């Protein structure tokens, strides 16, 4: 799963995604982009996997990890942005994503 963010003055103006995965993974990434488009970075940071799943009218238990991936992908993208532009984003300090989290683990769906 990959997320692309276009950020201007702290506002996410556009979001795009790429996903190799099942229907739930694609739907979760798509919904996550819808939910943060036009929002500020602070608002996007508040997006939870549950909110993604709820917006999809729920996901079956075995597919909940797809929504977690979507939440993680957004936070990874924001972390990438904060590193590249030296912007401090509240809430990212405890998150320790490695590169692999940008992608949907092949064995994981």
């Amino acid at each position: 799963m990959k997320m692309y963010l276009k950020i201007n003055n702290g506002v996410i103006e556009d979001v795009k995604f790429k996903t190799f995965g099942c229907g739930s993974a694609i739907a979760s990434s798509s919904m996550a982009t819808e939910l943060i488009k036009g929002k500020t970075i602070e608002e996007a940071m508040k997006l939870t996997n549950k909110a993604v799943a709820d917006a999809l009218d729920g996901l079956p238990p075995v597919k909940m990890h797809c929504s977690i991936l979507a939440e993680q992908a957004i936070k990874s993208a924001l972390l990438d942005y904060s590193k590249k532009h030296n912007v401090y984003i509240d809430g990212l300090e405890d998150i320790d994503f490695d590169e692999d989290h940008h992608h949907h683990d092949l064995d994981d769906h």
Partner: protein
Amino acid sequence: MKKYIYMDNAATTPVKKEVLEEMLPYFTEKYGNASSVYSLGSMSKRAIEDAREKVAKAIGANAREIFFTGGGSEADNWAIKGIAFGNYSKGNHIITTKIEHHAILHTCEYLEKKGFEVTYLDVDEYGLVDLEQLKNAITDKTILISVMFANNEIGTVQPIKEIGEIAKERNIYFHTDAVQAIGNIKIDVNELNIDLLSLSAHKFYGPKGIGALYIRQGVKIDPLITGGAQERRRRAGTENVPAIVGLGKAIELAYTNFEEKNNRLIKLRDMLIDKIKSNIDYIRLNGHPVKRLPGNVNICFQFIEGESLLLSLDMVGIAASSGSACTSGSLDPSHVLLAIGLSHEIAHGSLRLTLGDFNTEDEIDYVVEKLVKIVERLRSMSPLYEKVKEEK
């Protein structure tokens, strides 16, 4: 009008009208218990014996060697457990393959917990077993060889006659799960040296929940279900008369005009494969190019995942299936696709289209047309495809 194209005939088939018509009176008018002495009962008994004759005729057996079961899985369970427990004094070793249906694999795993030893034969890239490996696996303790006739996922047809000869030479029982093969391949149990054979009606336009196990005369086997004197004391339980009648009619129809139907299916299958090959790149045909079931097409589309493919196909009215983990409820893709040496990544992108008597050439064109667009769309959103394009 919304089109609906059914290309999952290996999963199940619709009951043909002629089959249903024969079944219907046995629900409401001729409802007698076949064990009863009065004429209503003997009417049911006759219907069962008539169906038994039809099944026997279809596979070159004697009617007394056909036993009705509650489906293919029961027949498989019975064959494996029945032989294992019935011949324990002779040995505790069973040989099967890595690509069997779970009705065989899980039964063998269960027996392993009960003290049996099981050898799971490898298959090559086409899904074929190696006869040398089979011969080498045989020990003095081997009591059963069970190899499926044709694989449900990739359609590969095994060298059943050769396996039967090896088993006969070594005096070992040979069972074959022919659930996918019956109706699609001509089978003669004597010519092929088969001792036990499982079949299921709903794979050849009969009803669900009914199957049969062929047991060669003289084979020592324990019953799986005990309780009554039905099926010559080998399978207890009041007979499902309408379903048995349906099975008999369906198997008779399956081998009527067989060559004609078979050739038509092979033509449609190869047309579908060729059209997909010439319109979509980064694909792989799974299974053997020639030794395959007449209606089976199984193809991996690289960089995309099978379930998303199925959902997209369903949206345009096409029913198909996949060996992707996402469709199975587990984390691993199909054991068959892994056994033929595919990586997890490739196996996830498999699509199975299985054709039947009701599919047409027009449907092939429609499916290919839609498939091209769907694969293109899913690849356009795949990070894996992006990488490949960058490298080009």
